[in-house]
């Protein structure tokens, strides 16, 4: 994890000679800024690599992930693109083009028409596809709940995915369906899907529905931290993560890079309010300065580096600003985190309907990882028997990415 100690260690290392494991630790420990500054000369060498094209598509989303990307630190997105020799070949929010039809026919050229640009770009193949937003499968499997340029987004995504070298799903909507897939009476009618998963269900990823097999990296979060996106792209572009060979080793069971979503670390471990937690001092009204456990904080079972990395200029993260962690990086978000403001004890460690893998996994990691104290002081009764289910992480990574069903543990429910 981060901190000044690891920074001092890593900045001494020769980036090009680093083994992959060390490289990934360095990528994880340093922000984009420090990473790219420290390894600038190495990255200049890396520029001898060919230009990498990024095709960024938007489905059912709020554009918050693109907004977050633009919040990348020093150097900013534009500098990062330049230094990593990336070409943002297609992005509906940032580029100049738009779809133009005259009497139903595509008009002008790809310099002005985004539809023509899209065709040109996917024709070239070999790009990294970044998917933001969920894919509508409804109504009735047609995908017509999202249409662009007269085509369904489902079909656009399929074509973009088929010609890609790698799919990076950014944000909860693309990784797991996110708010689009939250429980409601029209959820099944809309039938929004994530790329490789829908909520915790690996069977319902849109890739499986489409019959497309591609390597997938999930950058969870609502939105994801810009470092998580930019550093993952950097590691892939610089060849430090070989796709697909290295993916099983560097990704967790939800296809998240372990370096940012560490299986052995939860946000609670480094929370600045941890001291008041240890003393048993809890806030019950917002805007205080004590532990937020009784206000529903989910940091004790949330695997992310928010507390050490922090957000937007590396200032803060949710509990620091007085709001409980809502575990927006968990595959089942938001359902697995609701209600946000009730102490976990009140709703039961694994929620009221303990029928999903994620909820069991939450129970397990809550007890297993850094939360023994919670169990001692707060959890009166809970699924203690889950504690020993948390097996060694490495052994779970054998299956090919994109195929994970997420059903390989907690099946005793």
């Amino acid at each position, binding site marked *: 994890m981060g901190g000044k100690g690891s920074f001092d260690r890593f900045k001494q290392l020769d980036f090009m000679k680093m083994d992959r494991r060390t490289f990934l630790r360095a990528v994880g420990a340093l922000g984009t800024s420090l990473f790219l500054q420290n390894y600038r000369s190495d990255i200049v060498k890396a520029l001898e690599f060919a230009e990498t094209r990024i095709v960024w598509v938007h489905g059912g989303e709020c554009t918050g992930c693109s907004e977050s990307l633009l919040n990348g630190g020093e150097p900013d997105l534009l500098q990062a693109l330049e230094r990593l020799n990336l070409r943002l070949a297609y992005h509906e929010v940032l580029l100049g083009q738009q779809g133009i039809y005259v009497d139903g026919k595509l008009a002008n050229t790809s310099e002005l028409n985004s539809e023509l640009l899209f065709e040109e770009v996917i024709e070239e193949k070999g790009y990294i596809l970044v998917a933001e937003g969920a894919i509508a499968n409804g109504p009735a499997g047609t995908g017509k709940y999202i249409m662009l340029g007269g085509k369904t987004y489902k079909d656009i995504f399929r074509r973009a995915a088929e010609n890609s070298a790698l799919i990076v799903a950014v944000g909860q909507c693309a990784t797991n369906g996110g708010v689009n897939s939250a429980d409601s009476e029209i959820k099944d009618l809309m039938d929004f899907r994530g790329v490789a998963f829908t909520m915790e269900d690996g069977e319902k990823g849109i890739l499986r529905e489409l019959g497309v097999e591609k390597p997938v990296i999930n950058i969870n979060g609502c939105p994801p931290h810009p470092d998580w996106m930019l550093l993952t792209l950097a590691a892939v572009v610089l060849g430090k993560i070989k796709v697909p060979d290295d993916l099983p080793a560097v990704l967790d069971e939800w296809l998240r890079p372990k370096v940012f979503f560490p299986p052995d670390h939860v946000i609670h471990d480094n929370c600045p309010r941890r001291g008041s937690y240890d003393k048993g001092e809890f806030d019950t009204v917002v805007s205080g300065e004590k532990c937020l456990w009784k206000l529903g904080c989910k940091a004790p079972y949330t695997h992310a580096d928010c507390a050490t990395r922090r957000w937007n200029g590396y200032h*803060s993260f949710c509990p620091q600003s007085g709001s409980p962690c809502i575990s927006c990086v968990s595959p089942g978000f938001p359902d697995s985190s609701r209600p946000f403001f009730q102490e976990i004890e009140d709703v039961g460690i694994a929620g009221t309907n303990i029928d999903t893998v994620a909820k069991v996994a939450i129970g397990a990691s809550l007890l297993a990882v850094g939360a023994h104290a919670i169990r001692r002081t707060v959890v009166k009764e809970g699924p203690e028997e889950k504690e020993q289910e948390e097996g060694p992480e490495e052994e779970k990574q054998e299956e090919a990415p994109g195929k994970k069903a997420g059903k390989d543990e907690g099946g005793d429910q």
Partner: protein
Amino acid sequence: MVEVTVDQLTRIEGHYRITTQVNEEGVVTEAQSMGLMLRGFERFLQKQDPRDAALLTQRICGVCPTSHSLAAANALDQLFGVEDAVPKDALVVRNIHQALNTIASHATHVYVLWGTDLSNPAYRDILANFGDTGNAVWNELLGRFAPISYRLDGVDIPVGSGYAAAIGEKRRLHEAISLLGAKMPHSVLAHVGGVTYGPTVADIGQLAAYYWQVMDFVENFALGVSPETWVENTHFASSPQKAVGFVVDRLQELVDASLVTYDFSRAAGWGDVPLYAAFGSELVGEEVLGLPVSMRLDRIGGYSDPSKIGYLSYGVFFKPELGDGYDPTSPPDSRVMPSGFLDGKLKLSRFDHRKITESISHSFYVDSESDRLPLEGTTQPVSDPDEIDYSQGVESRYSWVKAPHYGGIPCEVGPLSRMLVMQDPLIMGLMDLFREKGYPAPNTYLRMLARMQEILVVASELLKWLTVDLDPNGSFAVPTDLSMAKDSEGMGLWEAPRGALGHWVSTGSDSKVTVYQAVVPSTWNLAPRNTAGVPGPAEQALLGTKISAAGNALGVDYTNPLGIFHTARSYDPCLACAIHTVDLTGRRKEQVRVI
């Protein structure tokens, strides 16, 4: 007649299509505004803890999440019965939070989403006819507004200086927000009864530092004069004539110098706002200042029938001097930017939230009635795929956006409406001038200028909230308990950067949500036709638009309908916000009371 369709209109939030019929003169004779994406936001709030809404509803939109979280918090204040008690300092923090978001959102729109169209090659072709002046201006436009990965005739164009700098300023503003709300987008902070975080003295100092850095950008990049000077002489001018006079005099000095030197750079005083203010308008640029050429954006984007349009603001920013608590109905004297309704002839009347209805006659929803109050609306998306067809013309259902009205009238919402309701002297003065001279009033030029002006107005208030009104030793939240939300209702009226935003919520005996409803800015602006067949504001504004650059100055080019891009994007469309479904079953009707 030629059918020109823009699908999708990019550089907006979400997925949006415009289909127009264009005659031989290159003038739009019919327009349809179409939202292309179904979302299901309010439905998943039902049966849930209402407090989650402040964090969840902001996920509607990653560009204006702050506005949704604050509208939701306002609705929850009333739902929990604490609206009279929310501490003054919590209200000031809400103001600061919204102001930072509004400035960031407007800057992104002006430079990245809308401004990019100023580097469209059609302007190169037009300006090429105007010698050294034309070439110099084109170099400025391209050098400032070219987007990422831009190519012209196969040549890679570097990212524009304004485009790049605006991204940096937006990042800076988001960093400022994160001092209070942890992260951006999707901050924390907004919460029933107050805010989750009380800023420290150190935070206030750091926020002020961010503020002055952004103001440096405004002065050096955008304005060319200090923001204080600008606001004092426009927004606080003693009359509309004086405000317009200040701007025109300033521009005239620049023009007189630059028509000799051919230097239109920022260094010569041509900030992005003066450059736009002079060259965007035929009236200001060509008629008043004597420029040889302009983009003639004041010739497009107006409303031809004043009986079919209004301008609406719900009011925003609590007045700190009123102390703790606030009136959720948003009376005009209770907000820094007041609520109000102007009819098509600019007659101002008092805002009454009970006049808001929504029509679904041309939207992809099924209901026994086509017009309902927001809290009575039942929104059932069509489930037959064959019914989702965007090609069946103006009589059909053609959008996922509903059509809201105020007293039966479609309304423009957003910075222009706020500036008009607020009677900003510069915008009012220009309205009058355009009308006198036979130009559309308002128009696309003025809609964008109002957004730029609002950045400065909000910034001047922000400094006061930050350095005068905010007491770090104050109180930032009142205690609440879920039981306080039993069998209750709440309304949150607010203004997002894009315009009027309302959240409505009601709960049952278990304090869980029975109804959640949001009526959002882009639903107003991008509405399809209503039950009476009246087009929505953007549809009306596109009628009569000359589709090619500068009023078809080089003839009609159907393949580069820049007039459509400019006008449609001038509303800062946000489709994720505009589209939401509320209720499939309609069974919540019996639980509704009029608030």
